[in-house]
């Protein structure tokens, strides 16, 4: 073997080094504005203003400027007239400072670069040696002309990369949107990694954004977890910062993030009543997803699933355990409505009907082996035949009334209040209580049909057969007020719901509780 001088054998192609490091560390020129913002953040800027055009990029920030040695290093790097060794050292300095944005400048085809910071200035036109004009006071400004980047892509990337920056960033005169998009809940992450975590209202994929200097530098997806979005500020290691290195560094923390997301969903599940319907559904989806990956005990007992109960009990929520038991009681098949189905327009089959969408049903089928039966929707409108029959019935009643009126053409005058019997007073009072308060019902003389002399005024002839029957029956049992009201007014004035309840309950009307809810609701059906 013949000894060789290693210095003679080994060398660095500085030209290639600069070119490759400039070109192959960022995706393309469209990443440059974000890298310049990164430098600004590292320089403790509080406000950054970026303008991106097809051939011109400018960046202004209010930080103290570049570190003292960075601008000379950049000038050396860009100066092709300097020796390779000098440029190599300049490159090393910039790389040690992770100033990839500045290194990238050496590989991009701009026509003019101007950097002005409180500590120095640089003016470089392509093909000439960089100039070092006198520094000026004020903010830092970087101007790059003739860059030829894809402006739209650069804006999109800048917006994506700056989503979580702590400082104000304006792009082309408007503030960039920050933070998680449409988060249901957010929380802070502490050691071992710092950052934030959120549960988004939409989406299926769990994403973790990895930040370097406050800017997104990489992202990873987490499988088999309730959908969450997290952002981690990655500590800077000793070696070169790359997206792959960031992902490697984040990998050990991903399981913990999934657990944290599940805990957040559990937290929301605990106060699900305070959320609106769509958020409730989203929380249920997240928790079912968590349950499919192994449900913790507290999840099993959490009352999450809304149900309508048809035994006079109020609507309530069932936990997974209760739901399983309810299904068991119903033979493994439970009644369920879809969320967009109106419970009042459905006839459920069963004592309990859950309100579940297809995703929830699918997950519950998988978890508990449940089967669902749906409710039969009531017709949205009555059939033509039914409406015709109803019209004929009304016409028939009207004809009978007309006949009666022909027999008794004269309308008897209203009976004075003082002349009313006790039973008559009770009847009128009962009717008044049952009907709309704006209606006035009075007794009249004679035996003709029920009349309606005014819009809200009914006159019941004292000796009309139906009125007399009603009078006799209500004296015996006030519950008869309900059929009496239906019979007297034939649907044109309707008794209130509690009158019907009293009739069905078999209790005197005076003893029945008055419920303010107007219509019959499924939950109160006896």
């Amino acid at each position, binding site marked *: 073997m013949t000894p060789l001088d*290693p210095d003679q054998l080994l060398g660095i192609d500085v030209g*290639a080094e600069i070119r490759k490091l400039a070109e192959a560390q960022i995706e393309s020129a469209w990443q440059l504005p974000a890298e310049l913002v990164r430098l600004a953040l590292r320089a403790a800027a509080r406000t950054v203003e970026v303008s991106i055009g097809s051939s011109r990029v400018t960046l202004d920030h209010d930080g103290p400027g570049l570190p003292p040695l960075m601008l000379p290093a950049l000038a050396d790097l860009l100066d092709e007239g300097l020796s390779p060794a000098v440029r190599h050292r300049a490159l090393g300095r910039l790389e040690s400072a992770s100033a990839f944005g500045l290194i990238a400048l050496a590989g991009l085809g701009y026509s003019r670069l101007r950097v002005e910071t409180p500590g120095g200035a640089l003016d470089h036109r392509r093909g000439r040696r960089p100039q070092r004009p006198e520094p000026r006071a004020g903010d830092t400004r970087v101007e790059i002309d003739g860059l030829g980047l894809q402006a739209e892509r650069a804006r999109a990337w800048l917006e994506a990369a700056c989503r979580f920056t702590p400082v104000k960033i304006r792009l082309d005169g408007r503030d960039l949107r920050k933070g998680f998009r449409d988060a249901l809940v957010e929380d802070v992450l502490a050691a071992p990694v710092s950052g934030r975590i959120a549960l988004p209202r939409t989406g299926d994929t769990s994403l973790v954004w990895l930040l370097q200097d406050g800017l997104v530098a990489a992202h990873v997806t987490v499988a088999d977890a309730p959908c969450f979005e997290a952002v981690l500020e990655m500590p800077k290691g000793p070696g070169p910062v790359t997206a792959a290195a960031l992902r490697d560094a984040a990998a050990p923390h991903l399981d913990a993030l999934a657990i944290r997301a599940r805990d957040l969903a559990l937290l929301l599940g605990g106060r699900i009543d305070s959320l609106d319907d769509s958020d409730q559904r989203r929380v249920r989806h997240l928790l079912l997803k968590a349950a499919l990956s192994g449900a913790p005990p507290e999840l099993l007992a959490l009352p999450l699933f809304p149900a309508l109960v048809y035994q006079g009990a109020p609507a309530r929520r069932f936990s997974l355990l209760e739901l399983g038991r309810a299904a068991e009681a119903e033979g493994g098949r439970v009644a369920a409505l879809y969320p967009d189905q109106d419970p009042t327009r459905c006839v459920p089959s069963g004592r309990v009907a859950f309100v579940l969408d297809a995703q929830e049903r699918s997950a519950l089928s998988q978890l508990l082996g449940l089967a669902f039966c749906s409710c039969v929707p009531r017709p949205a409108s009555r059939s033509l035949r039914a409406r015709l029959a109803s019209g004929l019935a009304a016409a028939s009643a009207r004809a009978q009334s007309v006949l009666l009126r022909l027999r008794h053409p004269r309308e008897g005058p209203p009976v004075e209040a003082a002349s009313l019997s006790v039973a008559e007073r009770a009847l009128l009072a009962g009717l008044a209580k049952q009907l709309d308060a704006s209606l006035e019902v009075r007794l009249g003389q004679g035996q003709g049909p029920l009349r309606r002399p005014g819009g809200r005024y009914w006159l019941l002839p004292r000796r009309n057969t139906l009125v007399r029957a009603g009078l006799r029956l209500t004296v015996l049992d006030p519950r008869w007020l309900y059929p009496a009201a239906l019979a007297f007014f034939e649907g044109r004035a309707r008794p209130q719901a509690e009158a019907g309840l009293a009739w069905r309950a078999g209790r005197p009307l005076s003893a029945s509780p008055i419920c303010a809810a107007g219509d019959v609701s499924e939950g109160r059906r006896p």
Partner: protein
Amino acid sequence: MRKIRRVDFHRRALWEADRYGSDSWVFLRELLQNARDAGAGRVEVKTEALRGTSRLSCQDDGAGMTLEHARRYLFTLYASSKDQDAGSAGRFGVGFWSVLRFRPAHILVRSWPSGGRAWEIALAGDLSTAAQGLPPPRRGTGTEVILERPDAEPDLARAVFEAAWREARYLCRRDDPERRLLVMVNGRAISAAFDLPPPSARFRRGASRGVVALGATPGVELFAKGLHVRAATTLGDLVAPSEASQSLPTLAQGLAPRVLLDGGDLDLLLARGDARTNRALMRLVRLAQRELERLLGRQLDLIRPQSLGQRVWEVLGRRTLLAIALMAAAVVGAGALRLRDAPSGAEAIVVDRPSPIPYRDLAGRYHGPEMDRLAPSQPPIALVYAPRQESPRFAALLVDRLEASGRAAPFEAHPVRPYAGSPCAKSCLEVELLAEGPGPIRLPIPTGHRLDPDSVLLDGRRASVLATETDQPVLELAGASPRDLRYRTGPAVPPPSAPAPSPPLPAGLADVARELRSRPLPERVSRLLGAVQDAVAYSTDDAFVMRHRAAAAAGQPFIERTLAVGAGDCDIQNGLLMLLFQAAGVPARLAVGYLGNGGHVAPSLHAWVEYRDGSGPWRIADASTSTPVRRGATVAMGGGLEAPYPALSPRPESKLPATMPPANPSVFPRSLALGLSLLIASGAGLRFAHRTRRSVRLDHGQHLPRLLLGALQHPDGFGPGSVIFHHRLLPLFPRGRLALGEAWDLAARGRLYSTRAGCALARRLARRLTVVDASQPEGATVSDTLGAVDLDSWDAVLARSRTGPLLDALNAYLRHRGEGWSFRTATAAGADHATLRLASSWLGWRPAPRIVVLDETLAWLRAAEELWEGHPAEALFTAADRALDLIEPSARDRSLLLAPLARAALLEAAP
């Protein structure tokens, strides 16, 4: 370029080695990559951990490198001989120095180049010393790198094998990307098939390839030229966040996408752990997404094969089919328009042909050139000919003399002279004609042809043919019924004919004609044709019709009035042309007949001029051709005279203005067709060149219910257009299929039914309702999950249900009121009540029948039934009140229904 101090080199090389991330074995990838780029077909990696040292060697059979090459590139950081080589995997010039991650004490590089001396360089691990020597001789070319470090790593062999497998198991040869590069680690091959377990699909497009599969857990691995780049969970991870789009969900039960991608044209970043989000990567990711969807469709198709119609529907999609339908409608519409506006025969005839009518002799119906006599005759005559490729002009009536008024000389009523035809030997035309008498029938003969008299068959029998004064063959038909006539014609020269007398012409025209007599016949023909076209434009406008009529009524001679009006239809133009030909000594006659195309004739009559040169055959001259009309020219050359028949396009029914030259109908469609054909051929060529080659392996054991359940859990991930929602996967009872999306929609409206046992109720309702066959697992899964109405249990409930007098009365009342509900009772109904909807309403007239089964033990029902005996009206009101509360949510409608019952109850109960 150089010289940087060795210390700088070492520091820089270590820095670059660290850039590769946390995996300390990543240098194996770089060594294998160099071997591949050197054209190796086999690489041997050997490890030894003996006597306190770990030794690793990597030897390939590539091209090797000269020492000079090594000095210039291998030992010079960032210099790479592969910078511009698109086929190479490496290009940064730093990969080799990742061997420093092994922390070697000694580095030995040996090479046996093809065009130079073998050499070896030994370096200290800290690059402080170097020495050059000669390697041991070996057969063939190649390179070997040996690394040693002074600690015996116990798991060295395993770690190296795993690293090589992880990084380069799909490595292929540089010169044959479809052939594996054999990598042996301690005698064990690490090469693996680029594939995934089924269901999976391998695809290759250009230099890129991939495998997509459906597995239990999601995962994506990206390779560049067979070398590992990175692993990820989803395809979206591979691209920049701003470029990521929704893909198949990360985890759907049994449906997690697993993907291997190997890009031949990816652009790696310096750290090698990422590829640029450039067009190549985006294309690859999109391709993988499409292939995943396709695989899902294929897998579903395997489990539940689709009919041909469904496949066409799915492949083309509604929009495509709609587009095709619209295009077809547009083509038909355009064709219809074209037929209406077409100047004449050719294309127009073929598109829309009404039923043909029998041919009758024209002699009694044509009286000479007039503008209103040659209106299109609809439908066409029943004449067909073969070969269809020919486009003859069938002259049905020949006029060789016109009176000054323009009337044709009277036609011979009953010709008596024999027809001197000529047997046809070649280029014959077979003609079939349905002819209608009675009387003489002039046979339509193509201009330039003569009839073969022996070929004439009338109703299958030979018939004798006579000749008219103008030498036209004629048959005498006895009856009025249509007769089947067949004959053959062929190109032939007619016998010499007596020249027609020169017609009287206006003075100026006569002079011109006289002058032309001395010219050669083609020149005469050409100039006269041009003169007519210049002087008389083709038109059928009503204004010109009126002017011709007025002039004729005023007694103005044909020639003068034609020139005065300056426009006319085909027989006006060609009538004038015939007269001019005759005046110039050209034997000519006006032919009135039909244009043949594609074996049929045009529905409208057309007129043209037949002329001949001495004893030659009759030829065609047509002043109504597409040649532009040049107004204002006194003498002009005619055009299109000797053009083949199809190029001559008379326009008997054209509505174009007189000054507008009619378009040649054949030019545009042909050029368009040619252009379109070229375009389609180019597209097909490009498509073929960039086609995606696929190899699909499906899983026969794939569990469809799990797939469906997964799709229901992740509807957003699949998207509404996914095949899993549109494929007809669910079995219907008793036959048929239903798509998951349709089932979902029906279930949400309470209109999905199911049966496991195929009960009588299901059989009865299957025609009117959508009944899923739940005896099959996928049917059971979906109907149970979505909540289908179980007809089997209903069948059992209805079988044990009954009605009593009370419910009968209630049902009768409801029927009377037009309601579709009916009530029954049953024991153990499972709940207080259950409701079954039996069918759809018909146009909203009849209500959909609904059965409500009440639990027999219901207290109110029992009370009402007890009341029925003594107080039926009160009982009915009580039952109706409770029953309507179950089914009728509208208080107003409830009140309307209850009012008559309440009245009856009051009247009944009043003491």
